[in-house]
């Protein structure tokens, strides 16, 4: 029988109709629609090979779990906007990269994951900084992923020329810095609207025994004799050892100072050294790191505690938990740390002896900073109040006022007033 155009269309149309009716009647999606896709969102790492390795780990997991995977990276400043959009729409990726207060801010939209992390914690031992950041209201809301080690980065050539020893305390730094500045190699910590500025000065503040809030996270404690002592130190460090450049820096300002060869010392993650090494810059051999500095109240370290959370509204909560278990297998996590070239610090004590830090003398000290890290807002939790304070750069602005000539007492009163408004108005 000859097949006419009309006959072909009517036959195939009927077959397609019957097939679709069968799917509807059965209430089961066709096989191609049932295949799940696990998606993750994170900031683009400074070391791209770390992102590449995580993509591979996700693909390996996808093969094992018979699912598709997608790992999206965006620049750091876009992550909060993406998180906000996904939380508002109650739709988006399954796993999301959060850090510091974002875990707390999104806690009501994040699934509890103690069934994964309790076991990982038992095996690997989580550092207290990550636990304080991501163990919220009695639950693990975010899986510890990595942190950034802010250490002293210095130019050994300038130190040798002035016959200077690396500092052990913040006061040592002021003395060393004064000498370096005289020789045209100033030290630098940003006093400006950038996140590194908040983080570095918070570190100094804690070392001087000052704090923004009490442990309850609600009682304002910034206006205190300890803060006055800290601000007096900041003012002297600025006038003795820095130049006004720090007042305009963005997060890369200290990188530029050291890489120019002009800078003597900055407080930063090891990205400066890694960038110089990666590009084989002549200055690489002159760069050195030293461990965190202590103050009258002891030694503390601000950092960005990074983690992976699972949205409660994700359709793949269990699959995402399985992925976390997969990622935290010793060989997988080891391989990811290696791929990140030592820039991303392990949140677990178990991995602090990783060869990525052991084999480079400039990096060996990094894991030792782990026990000293504290969350933003410490001794309180990193709450919405801390996030609101940081979005207005209150701490650097208080210091900028002091170095600009505002009396210390007035600057503290100003910040206290700003905090009171935030605490009163922020929900």
């Amino acid at each position, binding site marked *: 029988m000859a097949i006419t155009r009309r006959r072909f269309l009517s036959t195939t149309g009927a077959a397609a109709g019957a097939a679709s009716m069968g799917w509807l009647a059965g209430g089961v999606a066709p096989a191609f629609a049932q295949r799940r896709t696990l998606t993750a969102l994170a900031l683009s790492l400074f070391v791209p090979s770390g992102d590449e390795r995580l993509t591979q780990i996700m693909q390996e997991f996808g093969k094992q779990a018979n699912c598709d995977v997608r790992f999206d990276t965006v620049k750091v400043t876009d992550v909060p906007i993406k998180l906000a959009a996904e939380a508002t729409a109650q739709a988006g990726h399954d796993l999301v990269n959060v850090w510091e207060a974002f875990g707390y801010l*999104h806690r009501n939209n994040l699934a509890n994951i103690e069934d994964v992390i309790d076991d990982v914690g038992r095996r690997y031992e989580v550092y207290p900084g990550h636990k304080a950041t991501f163990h919220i209201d009695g639950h693990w809301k975010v899986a510890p992923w990595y942190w950034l080690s802010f250490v002293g980065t210095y130019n050994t050539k300038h130190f040798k020329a002035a016959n200077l020893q690396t500092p052990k305390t913040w006061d040592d730094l002021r003395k060393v810095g004064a000498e370096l500045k005289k020789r045209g190699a100033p030290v630098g910590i940003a006093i*400006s609207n950038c996140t590194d500025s908040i983080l570095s000065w918070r570190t100094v503040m804690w070392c001087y025994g000052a704090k923004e809030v009490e442990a309850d996270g609600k009682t304002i404690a910034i206006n205190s004799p300890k803060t006055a002592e800290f601000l007096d130190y900041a003012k002297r460090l600025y006038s003795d050892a820095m130049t*006004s450049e720090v007042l305009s820096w963005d997060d890369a300002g200290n990188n530029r100072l050291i890489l120019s060869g002009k800078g003597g010392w900055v407080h930063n993650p090891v990205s400066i050294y890694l960038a110089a090494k990666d590009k084989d810059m002549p200055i690489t051999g002159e760069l050195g790191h030293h461990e965190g500095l202590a103050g009258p109240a002891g030694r503390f370290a601000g950092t960005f505690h990074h983690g992976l959370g699972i949205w409660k509204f994700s359709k793949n909560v269990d699959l995402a938990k399985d992925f976390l278990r997969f990622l935290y297998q010793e060989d997988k996590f080891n391989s990811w740390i290696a791929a990140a070239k030592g820039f991303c610090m392990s949140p677990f004590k178990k991995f602090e002896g990783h060869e990525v830090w052991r084999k480079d003398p400039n990096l060996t000290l990094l894991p030792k900073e782990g026990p000293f890290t504290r969350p933003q807002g410490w001794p309180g939790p990193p709450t919405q109040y801390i996030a609101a304070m940081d979005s207005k750069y209150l701490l650097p602005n208080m210091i900028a006022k002091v170095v600009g000539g505002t009396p210390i007492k007035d600057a503290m009163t100003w910040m206290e007033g700003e905090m009171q408004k935030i605490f009163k108005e922020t929900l």
Partner: protein
Amino acid sequence: MDGRRDAEDLQGDAIALATAGRARARAAGRSRGFRSARRLEAITGVALILPALFWISLLVAYPFAMALYYSVSNTVVGGGSGTFVGLANFTALLDDGSFRQTLQNSVVFTVSAVAAKAVLGVMLALILHRTLRLKRLIRGLVLLPFVIPTALSTLGWLWMFDSLYSVITWTVNRVVLGPIGFAPLEVNWLGSPALAMAAVIVVNIWRGLPFFAVTVLAGLTAIPTEFYEAAEVDGAGRWGRFWHVTYPLLKPILAVVVLFSTIFTFADFNIVYVLTRGGPQESTHLFATLSHALAFGSMQLGRGAAVSLFMFPVLVVVVALQLHYLQRDETRHA
């Protein structure tokens, strides 16, 4: 005779009536056809507008309505739609030192930048209007700042204002101060409130100038040369020709460009975000950057929306006044 005439009259009347009836019928038919054509045209018009209306509703009206709602609610990110709080967000802003500083910054930024762009834009347009060699190439190059993505070009400016590598400082020291034996200048362009504000204004002028220049240039080309010839005959010099011919005829275009530029400049975000992030000490925060910090930094969507909409009523009044002025001007000329 009379009877026959009456019969003829009656016949004539009947013919006239019939003719008139046919004419009325034809007119009625034409009217029906006209009405149906008009109806068809109206339906087609609506059908053609509908897609645009749909996209405008989706991409403009809906987000705007959401922003309006957020501004009168205590919505936080991920916390549902919040509850209605009336004007609480707006009154709280008036008590906020950061916001008051931002308000002041925005006025200084917008007034300075728009005024400079208007003056320089007209000057640039007058230069471009003259017969120049490589006119097309020059006009294309002038458009570049407007064409390059703002975030990208502002990164270039960030380097030019860098405390360490500023090409501006270097040039001043090498070309101006060095030869006359003065000590080199050390300027931290983005480190002091006044200089940082000047820097963001300069970048905004640089970026917005082509918009002014090109639009004014279009206006200039539309002015008939006879007007200038007549003015010359009347003894008008270069300034007289500009003041009595060019300026009055450009006024409507200038009003529209100033209107648009005022709105764009008030809403600027990229330049400040890339160059200063609102610093030093909030001296360059604009509504958009403060709103972004509140909405996405501290998750206060309601408060952030209130910041971004704070100037909305003022801008509506400015727009209404300018449009009214424009309309009045057009009516007068007509």
